[in-house]
C-alpha cells in the first residue's frame, strides 16, 4: 500500500504543478476544464487527507468522500481569503490551490516515508 500511496501523492503534486502552468498560460479547452475540476474537487483534499490521516485508518470510499469535501472546503476558504485580500483571479486561485497542494503533498510524502522507514507503524 505504501509505494502506491507515495505514487499517488507524487502524481497529485505533479498534476497540481501542471495545473499552475496551464492556468498561467493561454491554454483553453478540455484540458483546462479537467485540470480546473481536479484543482477544485480532488487535488487539495487528497493531499491534505494524505498528510493528516495515516494509511489504512479509513476505507477507500471514505477516502473519496473526504477528498471531495476537504477540497471544496479548501477551495472555499482560499477563494474567500483571496477575494478579501489580493484579489480573486484565475492566476491567484490557481497559484494558491496549486502551491497548497504541492506543500501538503510534500508533507504527506514525508509522513508516509517515515511510516515506511519505521516498519509500517504510523507516527
Amino acid at each position, binding site marked *: 500500500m505504501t509505494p502506491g500511496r507515495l505514487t499517488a501523492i507524487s502524481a497529485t503534486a505533479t498534476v497540481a504543478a501542471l*495545473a499552475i502552468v496551464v492556468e498561467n498560460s493561454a491554454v483553453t479547452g478540455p484540458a483546462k476544464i479537467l485540470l480546473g475540476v481536479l484543482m477544485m474537487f480532488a487535488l487539495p483534499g487528497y493531499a491534505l487527507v494524505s498528510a493528516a*490521516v*495515516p494509511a489504512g485508518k479509513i476505507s477507500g470510499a471514505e477516502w473519496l468522500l473526504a477528498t471531495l469535501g476537504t477540497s471544496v472546503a*479548501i477551495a*472555499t476558504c482560499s477563494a474567500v481569503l483571496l477575494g478579501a485580500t489580493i*484579489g480573486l483571479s*484565475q492566476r491567484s486561485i490557481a497559484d494558491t490551490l496549486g502551491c497548497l497542494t504541492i506543500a501538503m503533498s510534500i508533507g504527506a510524502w514525508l509522513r508516509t516515508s517515515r511510516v515506511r522507514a519505521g516498519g509500517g507503524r504510523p507516527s
Partner: protein
Amino acid sequence: MPNSVRPAYRGDQAHVAQVGRDSRDARIAQRRFADSWATPPHDPATPTAAGFNGWAVLLIALTTALGLVWIQVANQRALNGGGYGRELVFFWAGLAAIFLPVAIRVIARGTGRAERIVLVILLGGALYAVKIQSSPYAFTFIDEYIHLRNTEDILRSHHVFGYNPLLPTAGYYPGLAAVTAGLENLTGLSTFVSGLVIIGVARVIVSACFFLVAERVTGSARSAGVASLVYAANPMFLFWSAAFSYEDLGLPLAFFVIWWLGRTRTLATGLPQIITAVLIVAVTVTHHISGFALSGILGIWFLLELLARKPTRPRRYVGVFAALTGASTSVWFFLVARPAAAYIFSQNVEPALQETKALVASGHAGRQLYGGGFTPPSWYVLAGFAAIGVIMVALPLALYRAWAAFGSGGVSGRRIPVIFAALIAMSFPLTLLPRLTADGGAISARTSEYVFTGIGCTLGLLAIESAASRRGAATKPARIINFVTRGPRGTVLLFCIVTIMFFGGITIGSSYFQLLPPSSHPTGYPWIVQPDMIIASTWARDHLGPDQPFATDDTDALALATYGDENTGQEDAVFPIFFGDSLGGMAARTIKATGVRYILVDWRMTDGIPVNPGDYYFSQWEPGAGEYTKPFPATYLRKFTTYSCSRLIFQSGPIQIFDVSGIENGTCAPRPIGAARKGAPS
C-alpha cells in the same frame, strides 16, 4: 510492580486489583469507543458478504433515467403551452420511476451496505437533475439571482463583500459565490454551469454524509437507508435544497464536519482535526444558520457525552470544535456581516415568533393555507396533510422504540446519538405552527432541512427489530410495534411511510403551479424572469451604466440586479411609487426619499395576478399582498406617461423604462400633462 501501586499493606492488594480492573476496563472502553465510528455496525438485516448487486443498481439506474425522460417530456410540453394538468401526469410518473425502485431496494432486507449507499447517492443526484431540468439554461429561482449577483460582482471586481441590492446580507457570506467564481476562473465554464457543478457536488456530499451519520445513530445500514429516504422526502429537498443558494453549500459542509469529526477524533494523531478546522471556517463564511446549527449540534453532542462520561480525549475534540464553531460563527455574524442580524432577527425570526405567539393565544390562523388567487386541486392539498399525518403517527412509535431499545437506563455512549436525534424529531410539531402565520411560513419551511435529520434517524429505527422483543421480554407496546414492523409486513409499512412522505412533501414544499416551467409565451404575470426582461436589463447596463438606482417589481428586479448590474431599491421601500393614480404626492416623496432615478414598468402586471398564493408584485407589505383576486390596476402604471417629469427612455413589448431623475433631485415637480391617454404599449 511500580512503586505507585506497590501495596503498603495487605488491604491495598484489593485496591490495586480494583485499580487494575478499572484501568483495563478503561482501556477496553476506549478501544470500543474508538471502534464505534471506524467500522460499520453489525446489522442482521444487511448481509456482510453480499455487498453489492451490480445488476440491481444498473436496473435502478435505468428506471431513474426513464423517470428523468418523463420529467423532461413534462417540462417540454409545459414550455410549449400544453394543458398543465396533463403534463403533471408525466411529472409525477417520472418522480415515481426515480423514487420507488430506490426505496424498494434500500428498504429490502437483503440489500448490501455498499449498494444502499450508492442508491442513496443516486437518488440525491437524480432529484438534483429534476431541478436542473426545470431550468436548464439559466437560474430561475429567486434566491439564485441573489447569489448570481454576488458571483458576478466577484468576477468583475475580484473582491468579496460587494453590495448586493437583492439581499445585502448575502454579500457578507461569500463562500458559495467565491468558490463558484474560482471554478469559473479555473475552467472557463459559465457562471451557470459552475454553480450547477458546485451545488451538485454539495448534493453528493450531503447524501453520503447523512447516510454515514444515520448509520452510526441507528446502528444499522438498513435504518440509515430509511433515514436517507425520509430526509429526501423533506419538503425542501427537491427544489429548494438544489438551488444555487448559500445554504445549499453551507449545510452539506456542516454535515461533513459532523461525519468527519465523529470518524477521526479517536485516531492517535490530532492532524485530521486540521481538516475539521478548515471545514468549520468554510461553513462560517458560507451560511449563517448552518454555522449556528453546527455549533449547537456540536455543543449538545459534547454535553451529552459529558453526562455519559465518555473518554476524555475524543470528547474534548467535540467541545473544542463546538466552541470554535460558536465563536467563529458569532464573530462573523455580528462583526463582519453586520446586516445579517437585522435580516435574521428583525425581518424574519421576530415577526414569525410574534405571529406564532398571537396564533397560540388567540387560536386564529394568521393566513389561510393554500389561499390566494390560485387554489391547487384538493388532492394536492390532501397529499400534504397525509405526509404530515404519517409523520405524526409514525414518530411516536419510533420514539418509543428509541426509548425502549436505547433510552432506558440513562445517558450512555450507545444512546447519545439516538437521544439527540429523538430530541430534534420531537421539535417537528412546533415547527409546523409558524406555517399558519403570514410571516412564519418561510421559516417553518426551511426548518425542515434541519428537523428532518432527526425525523429520518428516528423513523429509521422502525427498520430495526428489537432484540428484547425477539426474546419475548419486551413490554406490550414494544411487542405491538415489533409485530407491525417485523418481516415483510414491516418492509411494506416502511415503504408506504416513505412514499407518502416523499410525494406529500413535494406538495408542501412547492406551489402546484410552479412544479413545471411556465409556457415560453406566458399569459398573465410571469413568475420567472422573461427574455424581454433580460434584454431591458442589459440595455440599462449598456446605456445607463451599472449601479443605477431603479424601482421595479419583484421579478424584474431579479433581472435588473443580475443581468443589468443595477441597484434595485429595496422593494419594501419603493413599492409606494407604483400605487395610486398620481405621480405627485406619495409617489414623488418616495422617489426623493429612496433616491430612485429610473423606473422599470412591466405591463404584464395588469394581465394577471401573482401565481404563488400569498404572493405580491413588489413587497409583502404592499396593499393587498397575499389577497389578490384581480390584476394590478392599469391606471396606477399609466401615471408614468400622463405626468411630467417622467421621461420614457426605453420600450420593448410590455417593458418600459422611465427617467424620473428630475423628481429625485427636486428640479421637477410632476403635474398631469393633458388628457389621460392610453399608456399601455400596443
